[in-house]
């Protein structure tokens, strides 16, 4: 009986010890690059599984007017504080130009009225923040596919990079500038729009005036605000942290479908 008790004590003790080790060990393990690599493998699996389930055309749900959130939370930057942006805001974005360049046949820029003259799409969709909250809003803008048709893609173009005006982290080298990227499957999706209107009004500063991205099958941080330039690239390895976005460079998944 005494050996039984010892054995039991040993079991309980080692279990408690192991769980304590696991908890503090996770912090160390999570920072180990090999372990990180293994954990990150799930992202590829998630993306492949979701893309296979969705096919190219699966639409995000669209809601009715009555479903719109009474107040839509402003997240990330609430107003870019650069002189450049302040000036644009003062002249109501009349001098704002969207530059579209990179791997395109006919690089050019668009004024806000150029964009508003292109065929528009309006959709009431749910915005899902990576933190867990959701808000429903009505977005009006140009389907990105239409814009890309105007400029024409070079055969090597693979990703659409959105360069933004807001600096979410103050840095000397500019790496705190917000940027995002999506692949051509999402870029060509009918609900992927460059929105200049929200809830039947011009896009407010808090929500990304004058132009923001809506890519409805992904999380909030992909919905880049304050877009200044769209660049077509074959790889985003050369951009800032090389992970394809501001939050991606800070550890978040590039594919934000979950």
């Amino acid at each position, binding site marked *: 009986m005494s050996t039984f008790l010892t054995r039991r004590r040993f079991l309980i003790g080692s279990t408690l010890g192991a769980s304590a080790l696991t908890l503090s060990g996770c912090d160390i393990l999570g920072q180990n690059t090999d372990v990180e690599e293994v954990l990150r493998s*799930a992202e590829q699996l998630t993306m492949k599984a979701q893309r296979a389930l*969705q096919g190219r055309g699966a639409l995000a*749900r669209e809601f009715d007017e009555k479903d719109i959130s009474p107040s839509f939370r402003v997240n990330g930057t609430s107003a870019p504080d650069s002189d450049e942006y302040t000036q644009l805001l003062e002249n109501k974005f009349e001098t704002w130009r969207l530059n579209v360049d990179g791997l395109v046949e006919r690089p050019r820029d668009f004024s806000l009225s150029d964009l508003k003259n292109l065929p528009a799409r309006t959709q009431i969709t749910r915005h899902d923040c990576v933190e867990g909250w959701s808000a429903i809003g009505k977005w009006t803008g140009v389907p990105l596919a239409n814009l890309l048709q105007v400029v024409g893609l070079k055969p090597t173009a693979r990703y659409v990079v959105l360069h933004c005006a807001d600096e979410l982290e103050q840095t000397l080298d500019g790496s705190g500038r917000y940027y995002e990227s999506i692949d051509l499957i999402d870029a060509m999706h009918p609900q992927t729009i460059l929105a200049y209107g929200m809830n039947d009004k011009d896009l407010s500063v808090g929500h990304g005036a004058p132009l923001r991205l809506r890519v409805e099958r992904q999380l909030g941080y992909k919905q880049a605000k304050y877009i200044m330039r769209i660049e077509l690239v074959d790889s985003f390895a050369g951009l800032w942290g090389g992970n394809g976005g501001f939050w991606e460079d800070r550890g978040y998944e590039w594919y934000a479908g979950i």
Partner: protein
Amino acid sequence: MNENASNDNIRYPRTVFIRRHSIITRFTHWLNVLCLSFLLLSGLQIFNAHPELYWGQYGADGDPAFLTIGADDAGDKPQGFVRIAGLKFPTTGVLGVSSVDGEPTTRAFPEWLTIPSFQDLAVGRRWHFFFAWLFVINGLLYLGFSLLSGHLRRDLAPKAEELSPRHLGQEVLDHARLRFPKGEKARRYNSLQKLTYLAVIVVLLPLMVLTGLTMSPGVDAAVPVLVEIFGGRQTARTIHFVTASGLVLFVVVHVAMVILSGTWNNIRSMITGRYAIREEGPNA
């Protein structure tokens, strides 16, 4: 064991060993323990990023919340609280406000309950989704095997007579008095075990997966019916949290029962498969 049954020279009472759990049940059980532990603790890290729960399609700061774990600023000493369905409970020290490096800090779940211990949503998500995949693969392995081998039908599905109120009432009484089945009866799960395990296997765990998937905008586009079933992404998130709490409750009771009804015998049977049964003998 069977060849011994006709042997007259056996001395009773004696202990016989039976094969309690198949290799698949044992393997998937322990992998499940690992997955659920990581899923729970990384899940609490994710919850901490927005410690409020809502009902319906949308929900964010300012919308009415079903549950909030937060902190009130009372001068220099923040006070942690949990507010659920309008009732507010002080929880300083554990929930809302807890100690980080000796300093009272505003965070929903304390650092000893989250992976990683420090606040990092990106890393928490990485752990969560990795183990979510492992958990689903493990669960499919278990379910596939249990259906094909007859484990579900033979060992877990209760028989009609086991579901009679009288029988169930008797088992509840026996459990409350900590009288556990012995001898022949100990060869099988009792009906409370069967019902509980079935509820976990076919209701709670699948519900965790489905509500988890419903929170994914990518899955919602592919399988819109999921959002319909649960009545909104925020409702699904709330059910995810409530179901996880149910699983924690199950584990607490499960571990207590394992300890009370013969710790080492139970644990050995889930590791090696061998389970000891005390036979009193034919004349007992």
